[in-house]
């Protein structure tokens, strides 16, 4: 339905099928820069696609960005779409981004919870979790950001399948999580892992809730704080989170964003807020990516 990326309305919320279709148009429009990788299937058998931005090389140092692991946080997925387009269109014109992509790859998972996202469009706009069945319970789904093998089942997670923060029966029990784990581990050269959420306009570093137990905490906080002024750092007591797992894996520059979605509207942020949100987020994302490029390890 979308004839080209130029006719796509980035200031609107879209269904999963429309976003997947748009991804194909982006790949078609920038074939030398963008490819689409199938990383597996969701619980309900939907494909999961990663957009890979690369100018060549084999398993170059890479940056990971995922959006919308909590399905109702619609501005995250919408920001991901805008950002993917921004990367494609700015390559070759933005000197900093161009130099980054000449040495590093960027991987973007725009729909990290495809079943949940589809469900928010059809049955329950406030759905947050996956759609997997929980044996012995009438309640469906696992919080995919409590399901990672990092402090699994600890503070901030629930062992009740009916809870919005249910951690699941075991770490990586959710196929959507496992698909990402498989890709990151098999690649082996990710230098940054960024997970994009929405609500409270914050930037979080790994194990923030344990306040300082992360060896690189001073660098992760100090180096970003001065330039990412619109974002604060928060202690968020949530075990089993993706950035804790990625940090444990050795990916030092692991961050989670909470995009603006608060105040009067909650998760029902009006669509006219998508582009302002994405635009301000891009400045922060770009800053982190430049830091990753300039401080290899």
């Amino acid at each position: 339905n979308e004839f080209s990326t130029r006719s796509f309305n980035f200031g609107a919320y879209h269904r999963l099928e429309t976003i997947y279709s748009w991804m194909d148009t982006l790949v078609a429009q920038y074939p030398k820069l963008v490819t689409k990788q199938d990383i597996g299937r969701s619980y309900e058998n939907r494909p999961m696609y990663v957009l890979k931005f690369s100018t060549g090389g084999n398993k170059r140092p890479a940056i990971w960005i995922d959006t919308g692991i909590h399905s109702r946080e619609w501005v995250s997925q919408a920001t991901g779409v805008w950002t993917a387009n921004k990367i494609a269109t700015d390559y070759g014109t933005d000197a900093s981004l161009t130099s980054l992509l000449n040495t590093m790859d960027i991987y973007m998972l725009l729909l990290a919870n495809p079943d949940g996202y589809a469900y928010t469009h059809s049955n329950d706009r406030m759905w947050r979790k996956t759609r997997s069945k929980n044996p012995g319970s009438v309640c469906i789904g696992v919080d995919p950001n409590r399901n990672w093998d990092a402090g699994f089942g600890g503070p901030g997670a629930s062992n009740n399948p009916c809870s919005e923060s249910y951690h699941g029966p075991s770490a990586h029990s959710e196929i959507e999580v496992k698909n990402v784990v498989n890709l990151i581990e098999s690649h082996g050269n990710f230098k940054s892992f960024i997970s994009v959420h929405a609500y409270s306009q914050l930037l979080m570093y790994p194990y923030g809730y344990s306040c300082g137990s992360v060896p690189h905490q001073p660098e992760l906080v100090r180096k970003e704080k001065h330039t990412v002024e619109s974002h604060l750092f928060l202690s968020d007591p949530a075990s089993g989170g993706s950035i804790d797992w990625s940090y444990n894996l050795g990916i030092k520059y692991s961050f989670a964003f909470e995009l603006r979605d608060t105040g009067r509207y909650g998760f029902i942020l009006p669509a006219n807020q998508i582009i302002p949100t994405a635009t301000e987020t891009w400045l922060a994302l770009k800053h982190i990516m430049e830091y990753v490029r300039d401080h290899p390890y």
Partner: protein
Amino acid sequence: ERVFIGDQVIRVNVQSEEQIQLLQALENQQEWELDFWLHPVSTELPVDIRVPHSSVSSVTEYLIAHNIHYSVIINNLQELLDEEKAEMEENQM
């Protein structure tokens, strides 16, 4: 399709550790089906809770009984969802 007619989203500006514990107790209160958009973590951060229509009176009574002040930030969630849906249909056209 699930509807949210009369569901409210309330905000509590937590004043003390005791209030945090009282709100954390609410998190484990399954029968009211509360959806915490912002969890009770510290006195520096607000707590946002989506309260189903059927639980509004119980929750407000609980808060008042424990002298916990709150404000309503969304009075009827379904109204916002209807606006969003209309906006999406317009965009689709």
